[in-house]
């Protein structure tokens, strides 16, 4: 067999998600850092307190690979220990592309996504199921095999719709501090019994559920004001983390800490992160907090994060992932190539241990200090490719950055459209909008201090202050309270321009009279009502994710990390039309049309029924058919129409959503 028939062993570069299993893992690479992390895991198993480690490294140094290796190691250890022994830790990966105001909500979201992720020895079991079964077992509430018990209980639960009495008994025993609220206990019970999984998961993630859903889950409604939501998220994270034990500890891995900073002078995100680490440190047990940062961020951490918080962040260890030495690099190169049996056989006939690569050519990407794993692998990929073609290259072809960025942005936009949910809108707006405004000339500066109550973003513009309130709550007391707070602000500070943002998929129906009245009062005081489209939100989400990846050095174009400034410049020159629309709606001077209540009523109806005849809409809303048709035509970007003349209306969804 010739080289030409063998796949390139350097084709995949580095691990980009700690949940991935590392393809090739050379134990001696970053061994010291890995051992420190293992010591940290041992420490939280041995003692009940929480501890933390701070991992530094340049882009592509292998921070995520280290986390993946640690996760795999913990799993292997648990497997080797067997039933009744040490168990696989609950692993939570948190990429911090969020804003200071929503940091707990973001952590809650990541925690729930990972708790509901299938992992571990139990076939098909989620991390949450493993956790609850382990606790039930530890307290002697399960007799025999966990999984058989669970299958039997689930069958009974489906038949009789009864709560799981063992779980209730468990919570009574372990929750002397009263952290597990009634709602949380009920929802955890549903999830363990396999009932209402979708709704229960949505509630855990903090989604605002309608009353019918809450009734189905048999739980009580909770307050949904902004401050309450953040505090609820905090409490829920602490409550779930309180379930950690020495046998089954929690490991939180925080990545992309850099994305918390809008610009190098922005302190609010890092301060909030420091406070969150300290809170987790103080309020949890048997939990390890690993924060991964680029060495570049060290200065900002020292400058902005409180000393006590920074000390908590690196309590057990500050660990560096150094560039690979030549020895380490050779081991990695050989391990990659020898992982392919055909290539290993071919290589055995050659005296040069690096064949078909050449040392001198590889070393061109080395600095005095060595080389990151990402650059090394990308270089080897190019050299191997050239050798397969029978030629040697001194320099790999220069990558086209614009093409790479275009593809990267489009990929993120597509994913954002596919997973688009109204519950993400606040996160997208509060994290993405300041970045968008920063790109467009830096004329608007975000203020993080003295932000009035009810305001999500306070921006300082040359024309004066602009307050943005994301009014995404479900119509009810929470939304009324928010609008009331904004109304008071409009009265007290008439010079502040006010923009009210709401997801276009959340129409305010005719029954929400108080909400509509307050909105009207705000509009009369000069506030603007802006409803970004699903496409605009997806474009904004893609923009913030691309910038977050650039800030944390994860934009890897064949071994070259694309600089943040390059990305910012490119985005400025290639701003999506949807984002320009958002800017136009926000910029002072533009006249925003007021929201049309009749359209909102049709949208609300379509939200429930999806496809409705024009005649039926007219009858239900007490209007003439031609009025319905005209309204649908005015809002053709959101309402689909079938027939000529229009006979049926349907809910129009974005391209990604429909896919």
């Amino acid at each position, binding site marked *: 067999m010739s080289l030409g028939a063998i796949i390139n062993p350097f084709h995949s570069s580095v691990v980009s998600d700690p949940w991935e299993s590392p393809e090739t893992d050379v134990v001696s690479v970053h061994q*010291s*850092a890995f051992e*420190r992390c293992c010591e940290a895991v041992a*420490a939280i198993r041995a*003692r009940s*307190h929480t*501890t933390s480690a701070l991992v*530094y*490294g*340049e*882009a592509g*140094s292998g921070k995520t690979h280290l986390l993946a290796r640690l996760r795999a190691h913990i799993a292997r250890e648990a497997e080797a220990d067997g039933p009744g022994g040490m168990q696989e830790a609950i692993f939570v990966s948190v990429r911090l592309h969020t804003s200071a105001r929503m940091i707990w909500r973001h952590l809650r979201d990541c925690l729930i996504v990972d708790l509901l992720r299938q992992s571990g020895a139990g076939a098909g079991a989620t991390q949450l199921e493993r956790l609850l079964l382990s606790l039930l077992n530890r307290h002697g509430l399960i007799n025999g095999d966990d999984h058989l018990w669970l299958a039997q209980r689930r069958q009974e639960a489906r038949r009789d719709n009864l709560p799981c009495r063992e779980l209730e008994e468990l919570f009574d025993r372990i929750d002397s501090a009263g952290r597990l609220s009634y709602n949380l206990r009920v929802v955890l019970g549903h999830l363990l019994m396999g009932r209402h999984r979708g709704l229960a998961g949505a509630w855990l993630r903090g989604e605002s559920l309608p009353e019918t859903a809450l009734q189905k889950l048999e739980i009580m409604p909770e307050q949904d004001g902004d401050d309450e939501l953040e505090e609820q998220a905090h409490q829920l994270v602490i409550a779930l983390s309180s379930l950690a034990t020495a046998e089954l500890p929690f490991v939180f891995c925080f990545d992309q800490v850099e994305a918390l900073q809008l610009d*190098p002078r922005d302190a609010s995100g890092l301060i909030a992160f420091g406070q969150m680490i300290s809170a987790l440190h103080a309020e949890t047990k048997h939990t390890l907090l690993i924060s991964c940062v*680029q*060495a*570049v961020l*060290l*200065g900002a951490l*020292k400058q902005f994060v409180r*000393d006590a918080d920074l*000390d908590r962040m*690196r*309590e*057990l*260890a*500050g*660990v*560096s992932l*150094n*560039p690979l*030495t030549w020895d380490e690099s050779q081991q990695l190169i050989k391990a990659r190539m020898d992982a392919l049996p055909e290539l290993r056989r071919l290589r055995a006939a050659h005296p040069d241990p690096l064949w078909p690569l050449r040392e001198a050519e590889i070393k061109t990407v080395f*600095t*005095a*200090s*060595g080389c*990151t794993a990402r650059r090394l692998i990308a270089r080897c990929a190019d050299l191997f490719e050239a050798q397969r073609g029978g030629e040697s290259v001194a320099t790999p072809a220069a990558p086209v950055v614009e093409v790479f960025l275009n593809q990267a942005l489009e990929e993120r936009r597509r994913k954002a459209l596919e997973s688009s949910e109204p519950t993400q809108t606040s996160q997208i707006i509060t994290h993405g909008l300041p970045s968008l405004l920063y790109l467009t000339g830096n004329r608007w500066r975000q203020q993080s201090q003295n932000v009035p109550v009810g305001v999500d973003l306070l921006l300082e513009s040359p024309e004066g202050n602009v307050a943005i309130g994301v009014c995404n709550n479900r119509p009810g007391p929470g939304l009324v309270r928010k609008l009331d707070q904004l109304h008071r602000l409009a009265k007290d500070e008439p010079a502040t321009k006010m923009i009210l943002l709401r997801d276009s998929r959340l129409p305010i129906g005719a029954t929400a009279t108080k909400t509509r009245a307050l909105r009207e009062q705000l509009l009369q005081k000069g506030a603007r009502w802006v409803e970004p489209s699903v496409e605009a939100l997806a474009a904004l989400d893609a923009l913030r994710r691309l910038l977050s990846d*650039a800030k944390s*050095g994860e934009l890897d174009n064949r071994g070259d*990390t694309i*600089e*943040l*400034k*390059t990305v910012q410049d490119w985005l400025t020159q290639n701003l999506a039309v949807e984002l320009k629309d958002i800017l136009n709606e926000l910029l002072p001077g533009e006249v925003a049309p007021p929201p049309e209540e009749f359209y909102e009523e049709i949208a609300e109806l379509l939200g429930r029924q999806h496809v409705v005849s024009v005649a039926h809409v007219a009858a239900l809303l007490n209007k003439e058919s031609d009025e319905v048709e005209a309204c649908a035509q005015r809002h053709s970007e959101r309402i689909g129409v079938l027939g000529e003349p229009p006979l049926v209306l349907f809910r129009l969804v974005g391209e990604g959503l429909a896919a």
Partner: protein
Amino acid sequence: MPNDQPLHSEAADFVLRALNQSAQPLNVTKLGKAIPKSALKSKKDLPELLKQLVKAGQIRSHKARSSVYWLPSLEEQASAKILEALSEVPLKQTELKNKLRSLLLGWPPSRRDEMLMRLIKEKRVYKLPPLTGKAKLLSVHAEPMSQDYVKLALRLVVVRLKPLGFTAEQVMDAAREALKPLPAPPVISSPQHDDANLERLILERMLQLNPSAATGAPVQLSELRHALRSEIADKDIFDQAILRLAEQGRVAAHRHDYVGSLSQEERDALVFDGRGNYFIGITLRA
């Protein structure tokens, strides 16, 4: 007028004697007990007597709900105690203040602060860069002393590792082991250092700036450059020394990934290798 009243000379002697014998300031009640009834017509005359002694400069006072009095010489003794408190190791101001509560008994806090400020003004106490955090350290030495920082670092490590079950002895043993390969600090006599001395100096200062560097924590090169500004003023000499250490495999230098967004001044604080690579931090290689 009170000022015109004659001084109770005998009573004044008793006051001065009592203050002379006391290691701390005394309040009116205690001073009253030190004066025999025969020496003072009425106890009510004591405040006026004290006022006159203060005015005459023989004693000093701090007026508060319960005023206290002392001899001027006691202030020098108190200052000596402050210097003594700092003689072992530099302290942060809050740490020193906590210590002075027990060392300077009877002194009002504001007076203790004043004495400390005066010592700083008189350049008997100096402010030095902190080991951790932002608050400066107070020291009796004008220049940072490496041994002081090492002591502080070890104390910090002992405190941090105590909750994990490590004894002070275990920590000290580990520290001795970790520091074994490091050479003795060089004696710097002139700015003309040879390469080996420069490199030793850099490694030593790394540990002073961040004792955790011994276990792999990074040190910012801008901080290191600043800390060595009096010894290595030339940017190129510093940069070359760092690159030599990296080539020798004694330190790992970490590249800055987006220098494009930095100002020239910010770039100058980094280490440049002349091949397009800027380095922001270094760690000791195991």
